[in-house]
């Protein structure tokens, strides 16, 4: 008699097993979807909500018997995925995080108008949320997102490197900044070659800040392209001069946003422009060679505008939106309402989030924990987005940056670059 091993796999059991496993796998999301709120966001949005015992939403999760599944991406891929999901017949994502310079009329139409939700089940003290940020999320008269985070740009400097260069105080005008950046382009005592300032070349934020320092802009809130040509020329000429003097790195054209953080942490640059919320990361003793020495002030305007026009730093705001095709909109609104509450806004601010509520800045706990809270609140009062949303905004930004790079690297005279910006971007502007 032949003995068959009990565990022998027959063709029949293999096929049955495969079909069974496939059926179980296909049923998985259906089982999970009933108690899960899927959220599309940047990793930072998830991080600031805390985890474990510090989870700011733990009571809400318990009360609603819900789990949150975050899907996180970097900013641009996140917006792309969100719009793609919102364009489908139905999406499993209940909440998506939206940047304030993206919602054109067409994009806004992909999201649920939120006034009816606010009317029916209002967010706590809604008027406390910065009106400018709420306005940024109101498209064609409809509120499509609830502001949740802002990243307001400040001027960071390495106090130790400034002291080494014999500078006792950070700059109060752009001219002073340019001079100090030149002075701090040296080899530090540690033997590190230092570049005065480091800026990424693929973001419109920086040339826009330099243009605003002279009272100009790229695209104003009322859609005027380069409203002050001389100011734009002065801004780009300042950047060009800094590059020529070695106060900007020779690798300017390939420098990325993350490089700004690491260069400052390693003492390879004395100045940079970053959101105030980066202060904790820049001074993190585990990452930075200069913990406690990297400080921030308001980005200074030029001497020409000082005392006449308030410097308008760039602010980027994020808001929570509900795709029109989302399955469980009531649950999504409940999440938004909880995240927008005063308690969670403060908790997120302590975790490094730019708070959207005016009252949060008055909190003593936040002031004690975040030394930059006061200056951030002051800068936020006059800050505005890099440019307003319009359908060809991304292409306009790319064209603007191309010409800025040509001017800064010295491949095109500044005046010609500004002419090219006006000529090339004009057809992209909304009628």
């Amino acid at each position, binding site marked *: 008699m032949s003995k068959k091993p009990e565990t022998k796999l027959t063709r029949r059991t293999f096929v049955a097993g495969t079909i069974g496993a496939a059926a179980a796998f296909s049923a998985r999301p259906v089982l999970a979807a009933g108690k899960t709120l899927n959220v599309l966001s940047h990793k930072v949005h998830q991080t600031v909500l805390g985890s474990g015992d510090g989870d700011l939403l733990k009571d809400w999760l318990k009360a609603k018997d819900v789990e949150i599944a975050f899907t996180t991406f970097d900013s*641009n*891929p996140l917006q*792309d995925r969100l*719009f*793609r999901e*919102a*364009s489908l017949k139905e999406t499993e994502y209940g909440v998506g995080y939206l940047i304030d310079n993206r919602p*054109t*009329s*067409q*994009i*806004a*139409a*992909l999201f649920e108008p939120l006034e009816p939700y606010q009317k029916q089940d209002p967010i706590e003290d809604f008027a406390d949320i910065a009106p400018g940020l709420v306005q940024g999320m109101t498209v064609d008269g409809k509120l499509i997102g609830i502001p949740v985070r802002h990243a307001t740009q400040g001027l960071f400097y390495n106090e130790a490197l400034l002291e080494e260069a014999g500078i006792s105080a950070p700059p109060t005008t752009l001219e002073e900044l340019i001079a100090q950046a030149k002075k701090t382009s040296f080899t530090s005592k540690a033997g590190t*070659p230092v570049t005065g300032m480091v800026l990424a*070349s*693929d973001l419109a934020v920086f040339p826009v800040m330099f243009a605003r320092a002279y009272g100009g802009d790229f695209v104003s809130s009322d859609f005027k392209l380069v409203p002050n040509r001389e100011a734009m020329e002065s801004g780009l000429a300042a950047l060009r001069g800094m590059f020529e003097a070695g106060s900007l*790195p*020779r*690798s*300017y*054209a*390939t*420098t990325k946003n993350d490089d700004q953080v690491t260069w400052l942490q390693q003492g*390879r640059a004395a100045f940079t422009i970053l959101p105030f919320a980066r202060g904790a990361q820049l001074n993190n003793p585990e990452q930075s060679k200069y913990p406690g020495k990297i400080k921030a002030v308001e980005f200074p305007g030029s001497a020409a505008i000082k005392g006449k026009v308030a410097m308008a730093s760039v602010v980027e705001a994020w808001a929570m939106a509900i795709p029109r095709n989302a399955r469980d909109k009531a649950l999504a609104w409940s999440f938004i309402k909880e995240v927008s509450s005063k308690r969670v806004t403060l908790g997120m601010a302590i975790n490094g989030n730019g708070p959207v509520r005016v009252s949060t800045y008055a909190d003593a706990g936040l002031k004690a924990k975040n030394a930059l809270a006061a200056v951030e609140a002051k800068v936020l009062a006059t800050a505005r987005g890099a440019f307003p949303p319009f*359908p*060809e905004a*991304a*292409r306009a930004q*790319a064209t603007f940056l*191309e*010409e800025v*790079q*040509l001017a800064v*690297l010295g*491949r095109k005279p500044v005046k010609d670059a500004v002419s090219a910006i006006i000529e090339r971007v004009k057809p992209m502007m909304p009628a």
Partner: protein
Amino acid sequence: MQLPTTARLLPLLAPVHLLILSVIVLPSLYVVWLSLNMSSFGQAPSFVGLQNYVRVLADPAFHRALLNTVVLVVVAVHLELAVGLGMALLFASGLPFRRFLLVAVLAPYAVSEVTAVVMWRFLFDPDAGPITLALRALNLPTLDWSFEPSHAMTLIGLLTIWLHLPFTFVIVYAARLAIPAELYEAARIDGATRWQAFRRVTLPLLAPAMLIALLFRYIFAFRLFSEAWLLTKGGPARSTEVVAIYLYQEAFSFNAFGPAAATAWIMVVISLLLAGAYVLLLRRGGLAHAH
């Protein structure tokens, strides 16, 4: 009555055809439809005929991207073939530690493109890269790739050669190993020099394999994206942009799906033309030496 052979085989072949239909044919047709429409997120597609193709073909940025791609493809692929051929001959001539060296030569193919670019960015960092510092210490010129577009193109070319050399090498090396030793023996008896043996025996017999390697590499290289995107993002000022980056920008940065789809089809047509030309060469000349 027995069914004809085709009818009997059809059910067995159907799954493959269904797969090709669903993952290649239908999406391709969808891209054709997209290329004939103007559309973006939140905007209903509107038929514009060939307008997207005209727009792309008239765009100076596309011309520059196409030129960059052609330069990179022509230079990198041929240089890669020359190096691959040289290495295949070296290995075939009998090297010590052949197995170890084979692993070393094939290793880049196992490295993901993203990892490779990060590695090369670090090695060639203009301020603190080990290779830059070593070249500087030896008073040799460095690659100023973050500032000079021509240097950036050189670095992209070197990186793509390093990444894909194993592919070309394996094909040519396998073909070289298949050449019978008797042929070289006969050539030597006939008084052929090493150079003559290479020209009259090795090269003609390797030609079909080299053409196949070239054909595939031309098509792959035409799609070059990661190396350029992760190294320079097409900069400074779009000067190192290749066609695949142009397509990516149109689709995912500008959300202009019509021009992006038109660019994709233009890439397919150019790749087909390239492939067609090589297949023609293969049929006319290459195969004549294949046996």
